């Protein structure tokens, strides 16, 4: 298998221009926005004179291109610059936020698989019957309900009424993190599941009708062992790419959940930085998100390769 993973380093190299392109676009777009950090920092005491003087002090009156070159120069030394708002290294702020967002997403992924795989299997095992309809109704609801509403409902029911989980926050120890992140991860999982369930259900139905499954059945395999050994790996293939796309989207899309549950992840960092026009932080988060999306894309292909021995992405004959 590792032979077939040759494509990974090549893909990583290919992604560098993409990420680089993202930083250029974000940098110049953000500087096009009206407003500047000094304006925000000075609050109600802002006057044109004070704003100009503070901007001068912050080095924001230099030509844009020079500022971009300085950003790149720092980047090459793995220095993401200094946050204008907080006057601390951006690397610190990002390093605090990234694990939080990653653990939230990983947690959400696990929970969504826990929800999706059994539900998809149940639906696919009896297409057109009641249980299938019930599962499909659930996916419709899941797609229709806005995330923040689901989040608040979970807080109300499981947090306030049942007092089973805390209402928002992140906790201080790893154990507490798991506990505090359960409700937000569940909210995200409910949002992610519908597309996963539908894709998995469709491909499962297709696989269940295939020859090799018929053979397995005739040999006596049935129920969960049948599903696990003969069906899942095949049915999972299209679903893996859907999950990959979902995850990439979620890194930015988790913002609403972060706000409702007071989880200090990348989404909040980014939005606060945008309001504050904290350019170094905005650029750094955009960079991290771009890297994340690229890595998730590569990982998706790695998982493909692991699941399906026929797949060889490194092969030159692939169109």
């Amino acid at each position, binding site marked *: 298998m590792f032979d077939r993973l040759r494509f990974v380093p090549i893909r990583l190299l290919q992604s560098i221009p993409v990420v680089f392109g993202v930083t250029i676009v974000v940098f110049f777009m953000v500087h096009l*926005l*009206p*407003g*500047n950090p*000094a*304006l*925000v*920092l*000075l*609050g*109600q*005491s*802002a*006057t*044109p*004179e*004070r*704003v100009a*003087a*503070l901007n001068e*002090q912050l080095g924001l009156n230099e030509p844009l291109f020079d500022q971009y070159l300085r950003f790149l120069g720092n980047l090459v030394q793995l220095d993401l610059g200094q946050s204008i*708002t*907080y*006057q601390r290294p951006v690397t610190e*702020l990002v390093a*605090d*936020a990234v694990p939080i967002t990653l653990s939230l997403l990983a947690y959400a992924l696990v929970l969504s698989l826990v929800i999706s795989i059994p539900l998809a299997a149940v639906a696919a095992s009896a297409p057109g019957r009641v249980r299938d309809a019930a599962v499909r109704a659930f996916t419709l609801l899941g797609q229709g309900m806005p995330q923040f509403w689901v989040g*608040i409902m979970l*807080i*109300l029911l499981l*947090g*306030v009424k049942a*007092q089973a989980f*805390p*209402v*928002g*926050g*992140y906790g201080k120890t790893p154990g507490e993190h798991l506990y505090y992140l359960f409700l937000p991860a569940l909210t995200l999982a409910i949002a992610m599941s519908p597309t996963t369930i539908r894709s998995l259900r469709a491909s499962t139905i297709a696989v269940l009708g295939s020859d090799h499954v018929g053979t397995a059945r005739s040999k006596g395999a049935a129920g969960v062992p049948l599903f696990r050994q003969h069906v899942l790996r095949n049915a999972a293939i299209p679903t893996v790419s859907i999950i990959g796309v979902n995850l990439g989207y979620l890194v930015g899309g988790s913002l609403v959940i972060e*706000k*409702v*549950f*007071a989880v*200090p992840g990348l989404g*909040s*960092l980014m939005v*606060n930085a945008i*309001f*504050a*026009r904290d350019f170094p932080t905005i650029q750094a988060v955009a960079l991290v998100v771009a890297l994340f999306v690229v890595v998730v894309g590569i990982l998706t292909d790695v998982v493909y390769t692991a699941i399906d021995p026929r797949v060889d992405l490194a092969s030159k004959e692939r169109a």
Partner: protein
Amino acid sequence: MTRRTRTRSAAIAVVAAVALTACGGGSDSSSAGGGSSEPVMGGDLTIARAADAISMDKTTTFDNNSIYVMQQMMQPLFTVSEDGSTVEPLLATGYEVSEDQLTYTITLRDDVTFSNGDPLTAEDVKFSLDENTATGADGWGFVNAAIDTVEAVDDQTVSITVKYPWAPLIADLSIFANAIIPADYDGQTAEQFYEAPVGTGPFVWDEWQRGQYLTLTANDSYWGENGPYLDSVTWTVVPDANTRKLQLQGGQIDIDDTPDWSSFESLSTTPGVTATAFPSTRMDYIAFNQQVEPFQDVHVRRAIAFAIDRESMVDAVLYGNGEPANSLLSPGTPYYDESVEGPTFDLDAARDEMAQSSVPDGFSTSLLIASGDPNQASVAQIMQSQLAELGIDMEIRQLEPTANKQARLASDFDMTISAWTMDIPDPDQWTSFAVDPEGGSHSAFTYWDDPAVIELNQQAQREIDEGTRQDLYTQIQEQAGESAFLAYLYYSPYAYAMTDAVQGFQVTPLGNYPLAEVYKTE
């Protein structure tokens, strides 16, 4: 007695009642819930708010979330009284002014120590005041612009000379930016010092996990007689108002620092929770850009000011928790004059003014508001329908909050909604900003230029006699009202919701809340 005086008297009475309660008077207090009379030692207080602090550097931070925290650690020579009307000695015992009004001699308390054990001396005062003055453009140095020199006469005496008679000086000294820190940053660099500031206050630095929580613990060697009673105070970051409300109801936090007005009523009737509206110095207003036709015409401005139904705005935005504004100054500000009659809702007077104006048949204009702000949106919609009665076609123009600030700074608007809250217990910071083009903002970005009022303001800055100063500010308030360079909307209080266990929690009209005498019953 006017309604405003009654409200103010009621607020003072409540404050007095709570103060008596905290001293063991046992009288009933309605402001912080419950009537326990003995402070309980110990306990951790958790306050949830929408955003995190930014920095503990007292001279360069303009952000309230940072300021309210640093005030628990670092204290100034004087401080605002609980009702906002005067300035009281805190680290100082008092002061004397020379005959020519150019030299202030301030005596310090002799029993004050920093939390590191060092005694407070005049050297520390000189260092701290000079530090603020030196910040210049990026900080609060402008507040000390009138100060010429600060000298340590002896350990317990400081002499401050000013360049010209300056009435707001003592109030300026009460701002957090002039809080007293150890001389020479206690042997550290400024940056190191502000990572974990040391001051004379009832709480000391503990821990800050940015974006999540900030904790201070009790200063065991606090010089004050009362408190601190709490073991620690933690501010958490909870951006969503609903989540804060649910955390409060679930007992996960003790105080919600900005409950929505729409939830205020239901919070006050929730068992175990108290919702309090503390009088503030906040005034919301409409600014007219006099560089844009036809707002240079006083009749047009007055017409619009008379056409605004402030009561319905108070109902729609504040759910009744506020009052129509009658003056440039707000009730919690010294020299506020409640008898000044600013334009009130009177459509006949409005039509009258329009008839006398340069555009009697109406005109088209726009109101700039910040997007995502439901309060501004409500105000804008109410105004739109009212101005239509005068034949004024008002478009609502929305900009993202920071872009909105930029537009306001550049006076790129016809009309816009804005607000001001006092930072200092003296009207000058606001009046100079608002009426004097030299104040740096072109008269709150309106380009209003009235030499008579500018002259009055400059006189008031230099007038030490309080009676005369009151006269001057009354005249300023009257003339500003007549000119309607701003259309005042309403005064809104600070909303706080807390569990019944929290006692002694008070917010001054400036917005800060000293926590030394707060405690939790069980």
